[in-house]
């Protein structure tokens, strides 16, 4: 009679597979930049003509281009580096529709990381204000100067995309909290930038 394989003493000792350092750096840097940029975007549009308005609009545009570049690098990085599998414990806490929702949310967020900045860029170009990145590097315009195009297409798309992305970020955070506080499956540790312990041999 074969001995039964030893069961783990406790679920908590099963290490959760964590994302790589680069994936974490992209995730947290962009989390901060997107939050700040979205907040500034919300605040600045209602400001009256002032120094602060001019400054915030330009900072928002510079941040947007930076987010676009970082997101493009992040997408290439993600395509070249598969994230570690969720593992049996986390997957056990997810019915089929949640796994589908998880994949769709991440996919849609990646699309919006690229599309929202691009629509913002198009919007300012169409208004006749090209972006000069950090006040130094003039960026090309990829749309003609046409205020109607900005008012009726690019700005509404930029705005709707930003709100959709904010909604998806909230959904993403809600799911993480559900795994952390309800399922206790250690999902948060996958992306938590804790110092890496030496593997116990």
């Amino acid at each position, binding site marked *: 009679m074969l001995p039964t394989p030893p069961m783990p003493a406790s679920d908590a000792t099963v290490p959760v597979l964590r994302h790589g350092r680069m994936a974490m750096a992209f995730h947290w840097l962009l989390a901060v930049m997107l939050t700040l940029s979205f907040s500034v975007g919300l605040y600045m549009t209602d400001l009256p*003509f002032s*120094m602060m308005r*001019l*400054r915030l609009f*330009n900072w928002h545009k510079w941040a947007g281009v930076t987010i676009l570049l970082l997101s493009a690098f992040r997408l290439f990085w993600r395509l070249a580096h598969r994230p570690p599998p969720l593992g049996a414990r986390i997957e056990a806490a997810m019915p089929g529709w949640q796994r589908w929702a998880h994949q769709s949310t991440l996919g849609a967020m990646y699309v919006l990381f690229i599309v929202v900045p691009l629509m913002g860029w198009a919007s300012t170009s169409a208004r*006749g204000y*090209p972006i*000069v990145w950090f*006040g*130094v590097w003039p960026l090309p315009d990829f749309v003609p100067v046409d205020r109607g195009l900005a008012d009726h297409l690019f700005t509404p798309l930029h705005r709707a995309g930003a709100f959709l992305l904010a909604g998806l970020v909230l959904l993403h955070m809600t799911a993480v909290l559900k795994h952390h506080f309800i399922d206790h499956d250690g999902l948060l540790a996958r992306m938590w930038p804790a110092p890496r312990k030496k593997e116990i041999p």
Partner: protein
Amino acid sequence: MRFAVSRQMMFRAVAAAWLAFTMMAPAQAEAPAKLLPAQSQIVFTSKQMGVPVEGRFTRFDAQVAFDPRKPEGGTVALQIDIGSATLGVPMSDAELPKPPWFDTARFPTAKFGAAGIKSLGDGRFEVVGTLTLKGHAQPLTVPVNIAQTGGQSVATGSFVLQRLSFQVGDGEWTDTSVVANDVQVRFKLFFTGLGPL
């Protein structure tokens, strides 16, 4: 003797006619040219945090009277209706007439008057004069290129001036890291009645 007198008289008459002609000739060349405002433009470009922002004056007038072949004694005067300034954006246009910027209520007109015109050849001229904007008079040298086709003359040129020398953008706006001090001015003025180059 009679013959000699009539010769002298004739000589005098010819001399008088020649003198009158030579005096009239420059006077004819310096008849004032007429500005064609519809085609003409005065554009100014400032930089906001590195981004070029273009504006224009839509109402101005000019009196130009000089002989392009002998410009030294000529006159050039320009008046710009400051209230006609526009950046093409209602929010910015509402700010321009306010005291920190053009203070249009107190200073409705900017003026340029030439003190000397120098020909540099090939239709290029240097106009030295005084620009009075927002109550500040500053010396200004303007390079002008003149091209002529079918009785029309087009004077083009551009120069850079410092807005703070005229207190344009006062108070917090003196911070040149947001709105640069240098403002590029470009003009294209159409005239009829200017003498040939």
